[in-house]
Each structure stands twice: as C-alpha cells, then as structure tokens.
C-alpha cells in the first residue's frame, strides 16, 4: 500500500514527460517513416561479421525510414532521460520537498526503488511501445519491399536504454551534493563516455554489455548516495 502510494505519486509526476515523449516520438518518428516510404529512398547499411568469417564486411540495403526514426528515438530518449532525472532528483531539492518525502514510515531504499521503477516503466511505455508499433508497421508486407532488419529493432531498444542511462546519470548528478558544478555533473560526463563506447560497438551484444555495465556502476552509486546523503 505504501509502495503503491509512492508509485502513484512518482507516476503522476512523470506522466507529463512520458506523454510528451510518446506523442513526440509517435508524431516525428511516424512522419519520418511516412515521408521516406513515399520517397522510397534506401540506405546502405554497413554490417561487419566476426573475425575469421569468409566475408569480413558487407553492406545491407535497408529502407532509411527506420534509420531516420532511430535518430528521433535517440534524441527523444536522451531528452526524456534528462527530463525524468531532473523531475525526480533535482526538483525535490529546489522545491525543498525531500524532508516531507523522506520522513515516511517506509525505508529510504523503497522510496528510491519507486522512483527508478517508475522511470523504467516510463521509458518502456513512452518509447518502447511506440517503437514496437512503428517497427511492426514497417514490417507489414505491403509497406516496404525489404522487410526491416531485426537488428534495427534491437538497436532501437539500445537507443531507449541509452536514454535510461542518461536518466541514471542525471539522477546521480541531482543526488550529488558536490560543491563544484563540474563535480556535480561528472556523472553526465561518465554517461557520455558510455554512449560513445556503446555507439562505437558493432556487435549488439557488446554494445548491450557496455550499456549494462555502465548502468550498473551508476545504479550502485545512486543507491550508495541516496542512502548516505543528507536531505
């Protein structure tokens, strides 16, 4: 009941951002897809095979709509990560509501879990579901002559995960009570390193592993900071 009350509160606070992101991605991504289907342009996609393979690289011809949509997905996912992080971890500091939030008959970790859980759900609902809808639409036989590559679908999810990593970085920056601004935003610099490293990976599994390890480091720091910081 207490956790549910916290979830409701967090969800209500994140709802505007969740809706804006979902609508923005649906409109911009859908529009990009529609325009590109009409123009019929394609995109030559470089594909690298594991070392030792008979063919080292080849170029896959795909329809650019999903690439264009992916750019929007990347951009909106990062903005959503920043917005949710600021809403959940910067705003209580500015509005001085931490005291009211923390003095509850529930342990601190549960309060943090409610925040993180709602943010993860927000990413899945707003971007994940819309991405699935767009991909499903593009996969319909009558829409494109070449069916979209399943790898693209997974890459979309990695872009969504990148947004969640940005959220974790913003959360840690919000919780960090460092006196110097540069120190305070250091977690975001770490996120930038994770994103650059992830993007430079050819193998999806490696990209996912980089993202996972980076996120776990951020998560452990968030838990440690939240349990030990002063409010």
């Amino acid at each position, binding site marked *: *009941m*207490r956790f*549910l*009350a916290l979830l*409701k*509160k967090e969800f*209500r*606070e994140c709802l505007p951002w969740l809706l804006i992101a979902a609508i923005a991605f649906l409109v911009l991504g859908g529009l990009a897809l529609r325009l590109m289907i009409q123009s019929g342009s394609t995109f030559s996609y470089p594909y690298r095979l594991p070392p030792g393979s008979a063919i080292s690289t080849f170029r896959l011809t795909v329809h650019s709509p999903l690439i264009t949509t992916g750019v929007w997905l990347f951009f909106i996912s990062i903005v959503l990560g920043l917005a949710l992080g600021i809403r959940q971890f910067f705003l209580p500091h500015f*509005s*001085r*509501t*931490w*005291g*009211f939030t*923390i*003095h*509850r*008959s*529930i*342990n601190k970790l549960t309060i943090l879990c409610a925040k993180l859980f709602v943010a993860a759900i927000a990413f899945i609902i707003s971007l994940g579901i819309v991405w699935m809808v767009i991909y499903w639409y593009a996969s319909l036989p009558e829409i494109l002559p070449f069916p979209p590559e399943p790898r693209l679908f997974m890459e979309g999810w990695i872009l969504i995960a990148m947004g969640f990593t940005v959220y974790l970085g913003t959360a840690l920056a919000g919780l960090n009570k460092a006196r110097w601004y540069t120190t305070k935003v250091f977690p975001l610099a770490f996120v930038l390193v994770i994103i650059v490293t992830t993007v430079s990976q050819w193998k999806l599994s490696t990209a996912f592993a980089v993202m996972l390890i980076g996120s776990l480091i951020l998560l452990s720091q968030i838990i440690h900071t939240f349990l*030990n910081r*002063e*409010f």
Partner: protein
Amino acid sequence: MKETVLETYGLTKYYGGTLALDHMDLKIPRGCICGFVGRNAAGKTTAIKLMLGLLKPTDGSAKLLGCDSQNLTPAIRQRIGYVTEGHRLFRWMSIANLEKFQRAFFPKQWDDSFFAEMIEYFELPKNKKIKHLSNGQRAQVSLALALAPNPELLVMDDPTLGLDAAIRRQFLEGMIQLIMQQGRTVFFSSHILGDVERVSDRIVVIDKGVIRADCSLEQFREAVKKVKLSFSDCPPARLDIEGLLYCRRSEKELELILIGTDDEKIKQWADSAAAIKYSIVKMNLEDQFIEFTAPPNHKKLFQWEKN
C-alpha cells in the same frame, strides 16, 4: 520519572568549516510542549534535521522514542509527526490527494474524522491544489497532515513562519487540540516568542549553535532581568555582581542584564556601588529573549541610532 522521548548527546554539526551546532545536549520528557527558540541561523533547523536523521552529525548522537536518529525505523517514523520549514508539500497535489497519499503510510493510525474536522475548522477547499493555496493555508494543511495520524511526538520546524497574526492563532489553536491529548509531546522551533509563550511549558534557547537556556517557561521569565542604575558620578568600573550577562554603560548610567540574580542581591549591590537610583525593568518574553541573545556591544543598525 517521565520517559524521555527526545534526547541528544553532544550533537554537533559543521558545514564545511562553519559550526552550525555545538555539542547540543537535550532531554525532552513525554508530554512536554517544548519551544525551541533562536534567531535566524541559530541552528534550529539543523538541530531538527539532525534529530530526524535527515542530516548526519559531525559528532554526537540523537535518540527519538528510544531509537538512534540515524537509524529511525519505519515503525518509529510512523510515531513521529513532522512539519517541515516553509510547509513544503507536493505542489501539484490537491488536499484530497495529499490526504490519500499520507494516509497510505499510516494504515492503522490515520484518523479520517480528525483530518476532516481540521480541514473544516480551517475552512480549506479540499479539491484545491497546494500550489493554489496561500502560505497560511499550506501551513494548516501541513498541520492537519501531521496531526491526523495521532503522532506521539510532533516535531515542527518554524511552523508559524510567514503567517499573519490571525492564521498564526488558528494554527496554534489547532496545535493545542493535540496538546490536550494526553501523552503527546511537541517540539517546535520558532522565533516568535508570543507563540512559544502561548503554548509551551518549556523553552530551549539556542544561539549560534549553542544551547543557552533549557528550562521551564516560568524559570526563564523569572531568571532574565534588566536593571537600570543611575550614579551621581561615573559608574564603577568593576561589576562584581552575581549572574551578570553583560552591561551597557553610559556617562552616569549602567544597564545590566542579569541571569538568576534575586532582587535582594540586586538591591545590596546597588547600595554597595553607591547607585543613587536603581530599577528592575519589566520585560516581556520577547524582550527577555532579545536581551538574552544579544551580543554585549551590538552594533547600531542605522547611523541616526547614535543619538
């Protein structure tokens, strides 16, 4: 002997190199209404946040309802009501939403009828959002939210700050409702002495992070005295009177602030110092507090005060 519900041992807090609270020792027994008074930046909010485990002490410790403040369990927090400074609540929630939210954390204790009574008493619109309420109304919602779960200990950080006189009175009357319930302990900080005088039975004075007085209100009222002495010539240089806090000198006058000196001793000293006239100035609690916490040679605020 009454059970102690709030106690601190050498509670100390530094913010970087700035000392905010200096070895605070305090024991508040059950059923006590304690006014925690001090000027701005005296260390009141720091002390309260340390007691509630929202800040970490540099040294010392605090216990609330027998539990270390740094490890307050959810069960203990459930027995403590807290009214934050400035009545910071979730601005987007309506009063009804906040009630629902708060009730979830006190499933067994929450008193629906008491909350409804308080909302009605304060004439608050239940469906109005917090961001649309005035400062005073937010204070009233804050108090109702803190009182409805029937807390054993109510801790309030400057609850009447920024409220007009009428709202303040209404707020204090709401507080008195709780006080009338036996066994409830209230610890509230304030710099409005009238409020403290109205509801407290004990006063703790903090100044620059140091506890300067911890006694009953009557004891404080009796202890702090201002004496004016007139002399035919220069006042004596040596002031060997018991309980002297500080003095102000003018050409032929002395103004002494004394702590705990009885009237007979004042008379004897005035005679021995050859004062031609002496009088004990009547002070209200606010005057006493100001004199008690004023620096010995406080600076003039404006140039024209020189005359």
